[in-house]
């Protein structure tokens, strides 16, 4: 007897850009503490899917419901725009592929991390700065750089800062689009370790879009595999990668050197 209810429920999600179906009829549920990986190659529709379910792109069809703390499962596109924006700033996190899209490059690292707190009414400077310091340490950034601007950081550091900026309000659900894309291999590795650790420690739920099966294996509990806008296979990560059923999944898995 299963009494838990899903944190996020997506039903028949479809988005078309004119005549082109970017993603078609996607349905899934996400439970608290689960990490869902969305894998597929370029053009599979995974980024469009992520944008639709993270309230940043209204889909042409389908429903996205989130378990709001106050109201229970609610259609996020039935909320008003300020309610959606508040959700994106508090209970949700969005980590973009390019950290420049998710950071204020002209604001100090501490200011970037403290912004969400100030946005929801924090007015004590020392407390805000203290929290910023805590989070910079959690993401293993040098505290001495708290007043430096991210435009002077390396890519890996910017990505860590973006993560800290999103987690400071203790969101329950985090969306990540290729969080380690574009980074050097060793930098990627350390960032993955950090993400793994944070997800477990904070019991986050997350939806991670990636084309890298190794990242999926390491971070995700479940996978959905997309091709040409459709979900071709879904299941537990180890099952999809060890016992792929769909032809495309088998192709993907066999194409990777070592998964």
């Amino acid at each position, binding site marked *: 007897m299963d009494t838990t209810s899903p944190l996020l429920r997506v039903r028949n999600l479809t988005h078309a850009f004119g005549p082109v179906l970017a993603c078609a009829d996607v349905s899934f*549920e996400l439970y608290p503490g689960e990490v869902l990986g969305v894998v597929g190659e370029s053009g599979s529709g995974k980024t469009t899917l992520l944008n639709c379910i993270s309230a940043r792109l209204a889909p042409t069809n389908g429903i996205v419901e989130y378990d709001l703390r106050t109201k229970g499962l609610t259609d996020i596109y039935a909320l008003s725009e300020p309610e959606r924006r508040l959700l994106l700033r508090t209970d949700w996190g969005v980590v973009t592929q390019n950290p420049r899209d998710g950071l204020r490059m002209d604001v100090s690292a501490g200011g970037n991390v403290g912004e969400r707190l100030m946005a929801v009414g924090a007015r004590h400077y020392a407390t805000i700065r203290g929290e910023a310091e805590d989070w910079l340490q959690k993401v293993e950034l040098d505290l001495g750089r708290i007043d430096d601007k991210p435009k002077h950081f390396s890519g890996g550091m910017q990505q860590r800062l973006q993560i800290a900026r999103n987690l400071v309000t203790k969101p329950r659900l985090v969306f990540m689009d290729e969080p380690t894309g574009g980074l050097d291999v060793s930098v990627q590795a350390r960032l993955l370790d950090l993400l793994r650790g944070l997800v*477990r420690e904070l019991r986050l739920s997350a939806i991670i879009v990636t084309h890298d099966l190794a990242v999926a294996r390491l971070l995700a509990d479940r996978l959905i595999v997309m091709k040409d806008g459709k979900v071709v296979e879904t299941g537990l990560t180890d*099952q999809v990668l060890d*016992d792929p059923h*769909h032809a495309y999944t*088998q192709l993907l898995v066999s194409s990777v050197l070592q998964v």
Partner: protein
Amino acid sequence: MTDQKKDPMIRVENLSKTFVLHVQGSARLPVFTNLSLEVAAGECVALYGPSGTGKSTLLRSLYANYKPGSGHVWVRHGNDAGEHEWVDMAGAAPHRVLEVRRRTVGYVSQFLRVIPRVPSRDIVAEPLHALGVDPETARAKAEGLLARLNIPEAMWHLAPATFSGGEQQRVNIARGFAVDYPILLLDEPTASLDAGNRAVVVALIAEAKARGAAVVGIFHDDEVREEIADRVFDLSRERAAA
């Protein structure tokens, strides 16, 4: 204790598995058909048969690592409140299967899948963390198991990537025994171990049985099998009968 020992913990019903290899022109590889098996608490069942009869496939299917074509894998799952229910690993929702894996069914694979850069003691402690056990207790238990399996203390803070095959396997085993799972699945747990370590593993399995765990294993070593298995499930005979 004897009554509890007789309670069925696993019920496999008419399980069939055929691999379809699309990458090789959709070649079909049937492995087994309509298998049924029951395993009771405190019992150790050895899966037996030559290569290709599907021992590993069956074991993985019990863990939902492989997805069967048809049939059920009923597993007796208990929650915090001490209530029990039967969950079908072959058909349950992913979050339910994940919950069963966290709490009820432990799996020791044949080879350690190395997570890079994580120290061996943390790899072993991880299943305890997932259950919310406090870090100190988890660490102590992990270190105890590593010590028992003769992994020197100097290696506890090292990542297993550079360990020998046998050392990696022992880390793997330690992780599998960190939590007192009611159901244990073991795939060749004593392969690549010397006699001394084999004995440790046998003792670990015996202790698990004694506390009422249901154990299903693949043991290539005849001696180990004879010592620890209560009965043998012969897949080649199942295949012939099918």
